[in-house]
């Protein structure tokens, strides 16, 4: 057992309101620069939809992630090592700018400077690359809230395998459904971006698992962009270097949650430490598809287990990190309650950001002008619990996103969430819990105590409960290089030169 720690984020999708505050916070902090305008290290997509960049989940096209060959060996879908060298001059799988969008702004000055005329002046859109007038045909979140659209929703790669009738139904106006999917880099345990980088410029920090690009070593071979199945490495066209989400490590190192999480309006995000067994990574990543999800979750270790604690200490993990791992809300949701899942585990990168899948309204029908639920009034909750297929968002769709197509996994999570909801509703509306509610909890595999705890962490957690951040002991790593006194108050990026484009 080789224990390592991972800073992990959890997204409670049931709470995301799609406000994009997270994206804006991130943009203002990190990517509001020339060459980075089109980068959304944090983005929020409307799903079902094609996401950002368009259709990123279509790995036949983009060649992201790993695959398991007939002999059970793990291979990058993008390339073998010799092929990577041969493809340096031109990387056929690299997305083009139009797969994202051409960054633009408006000539606001014209509103003030235009000569007097018959008509009001307008602010013409111009490209932020060429500064020529452009016609804007796409942009960040161009498909925002376009649930049921035959351009976006209908072309969602994760809709594959869903019944034709259900797909048709999802584009009917009364049955339209969508939810939001906020995404950042998953800081994977088996990152494809690291494996694909010919220069060896990308690495994973073992102390907190953050995956970073060493910009001094990046040579613009841009294999990482193609290899990341989540398309979370971006190429800066101005500096000629690749960039990605850094999990706000300068903030983490100073005890603050990443900007996206900190600013989250829906308070859907949780941060915490997970301990995992690094010896298992290779085996887990090459598991057959039906065992992938379980194997990945099994890699996460129990911070209360004496053996784990001893091994962690032996691996140099400080006791306050182990303590943080015990209080980690991510561990609680993922391992204790079994409610959170990684996004697309079938990409085999062992993604380390977790999602609680969203509940959706039940399917309703319209009679006359009235919207009517297809459920008997007195027992709605129970009906739904027994028959989750009445939920508007097909369970299979969620399974395609989070559980390699295994619907049972999703059903279990949704049932637990419904049980919590029903229990708390009975408690606050009826003022008492009756037999049938208790039976419902049992059917969902939970208990009143657990329900209360889930409710508390889901609905009314304090900021300290949402973000359990371990102390980083920067003073120790600084000591390896510099006099800590001289560097007091100056931790963060360390010595860098200004990011000017080379000639």
């Amino acid at each position, binding site marked *: 057992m080789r224990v390592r720690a991972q800073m992990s984020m959890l997204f409670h999708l049931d709470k995301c309101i799609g406000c994009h505050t997270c994206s804006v916070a991130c943009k203002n902090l990190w990517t509001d620069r020339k060459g980075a305008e089109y980068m959304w290290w944090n983005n929020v997509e409307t799903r079902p939809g094609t996401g950002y960049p368009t259709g990123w989940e279509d790995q036949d096209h983009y060649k992201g992630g790993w695959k398991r060959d007939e002999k059970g060996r793990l291979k990058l879908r993008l390339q073998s090592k010799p092929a990577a060298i041969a493809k*340096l001059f031109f990387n056929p799988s690299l997305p083009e700018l139009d797969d994202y969008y051409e960054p633009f702004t408006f000539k606001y000055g014209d509103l003030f400077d235009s000569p007097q005329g018959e008509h009001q002046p307008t602010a013409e859109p111009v490209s932020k690359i*060429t500064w020529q007038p452009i016609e804007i045909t796409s942009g960040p979140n161009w498909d925002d809230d376009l649930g049921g659209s035959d351009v976006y929703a209908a072309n969602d790669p994760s809709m594959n395998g869903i019944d034709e009738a259900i797909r048709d139904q999802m584009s009917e106006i009364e049955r339209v459904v969508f939810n939001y999917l906020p995404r950042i880099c998953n800081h994977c345990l088996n990152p494809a971006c690291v494996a694909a980088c*010919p220069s060896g410029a990308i*690495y*994973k920090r073992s102390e907190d698992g953050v995956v970073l690009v060493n910009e001094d070593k990046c040579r613009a071979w841009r294999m990482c962009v193609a290899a990341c199945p989540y398309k979370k490495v971006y190429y800066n066209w101005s500096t000629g270097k690749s960039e990605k989400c850094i999990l706000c490590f300068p903030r983490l190192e100073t005890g603050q949650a990443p900007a996206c999480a900190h600013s989250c309006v829906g308070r859907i995000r949780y941060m915490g430490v997970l301990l995992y067994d*690094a010896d298992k990574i290779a085996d887990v990543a090459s598991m057959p598809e039906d065992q992938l999800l379980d194997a990945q979750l099994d890699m996460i270790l129990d911070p209360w287990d004496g053996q784990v604690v001893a091994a962690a200490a032996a691996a140099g993990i400080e006791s306050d990190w182990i303590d943080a791992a015990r209080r980690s809300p991510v561990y609680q949701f993922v391992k204790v309650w079994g409610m959170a899942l990684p996004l697309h585990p079938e990409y085999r990168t062992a993604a380390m950001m977790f999602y609680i899948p969203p509940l959706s309204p039940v399917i309703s029908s319209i009679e006359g002008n009235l919207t009517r639920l297809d459920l008997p009034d007195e027992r709605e909750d129970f009906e739904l619990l027994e028959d989750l297929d009445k939920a508007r968002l097909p369970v299979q769709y969620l399974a395609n996103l989070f559980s390699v197509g295994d619907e049972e996994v999703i059903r279990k999570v949704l049932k637990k969430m419904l049980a919590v909801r029903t229990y708390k509703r009975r408690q606050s509306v009826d003022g008492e819990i009756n037999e049938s509610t208790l039976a419902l909890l049992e059917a969902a595999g939970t208990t009143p105590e657990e329900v209360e705890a889930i409710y508390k962490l889901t609905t009314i957690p304090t900021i300290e409960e949402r973000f359990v951040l371990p102390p980083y002991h920067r003073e*120790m790593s600084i000591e*390896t290089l510099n006099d800590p006194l001289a560097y007091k108050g100056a931790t963060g990026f360390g010595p860098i030169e200004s990011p000017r484009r*080379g000639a």
Partner: protein
Amino acid sequence: MNNLLFVVFPYVAATLAIVVTIIRWRRHPFSVSALSSQLLEKRKLYWGSVSFHWGITVILVMHLVVLIIPDGIDYWNGAPVRLYLLEATGIALAVWAGVGLGILLYRRMTNLRVRAVTTRADMVVLGIIAVAIITGLWTAIGYRWGSFWGTAVFVPYVRSLLIFQPRPELVEALPWVIKTHVLTAFAFLVVFPFTRLVHIITVPFGYLTRPWQKVIRMSREPGVYHPASKKPLERIKS
């Protein structure tokens, strides 16, 4: 004049190429990049970059082979068929590289997005290589057979430079086209360290042997790597 162009110039060029590259590498590692523009334009780059790079790289390697084992080339050229084959291959590669370069130049001048990231240095580089390819082809076709007489002229000349006993008289009597071709090589060395051409020596062959994953820890443990350090603390723990 001959001394200036064929003795002083090559030494200045080589010194610049070596010294400036080392300084740039150590002091400004961020600036070392192939500066890909593929994100901005893909189709023309495919036709341009792939043909240009394969053509030019093989030709440069062939130049190097001639320099290292001229006897081998002479032996190969002993039979006329093989001489024709070698020359034809060279010309074909040069044409291939030339067409690729033409596409790259056209792309840099016409595509607005690519123009936004095009610097004067880029045009100078493409210009020098264009002159090199044109004069090289001209030599190959106009002054047959280069690979045959070249081993008796260029090889001793370049070697004389390398052992610091320059013999510029070897190239003195050559026609101006061939002289220009030789000079573009030195011009290439001059611009090499100041432009994106440094990417040529960054070809990451280390990738072939390194493990897939790379995990780094900052700590006081001996032999462990600090990513921001320029000191040789570097060790990869995977």
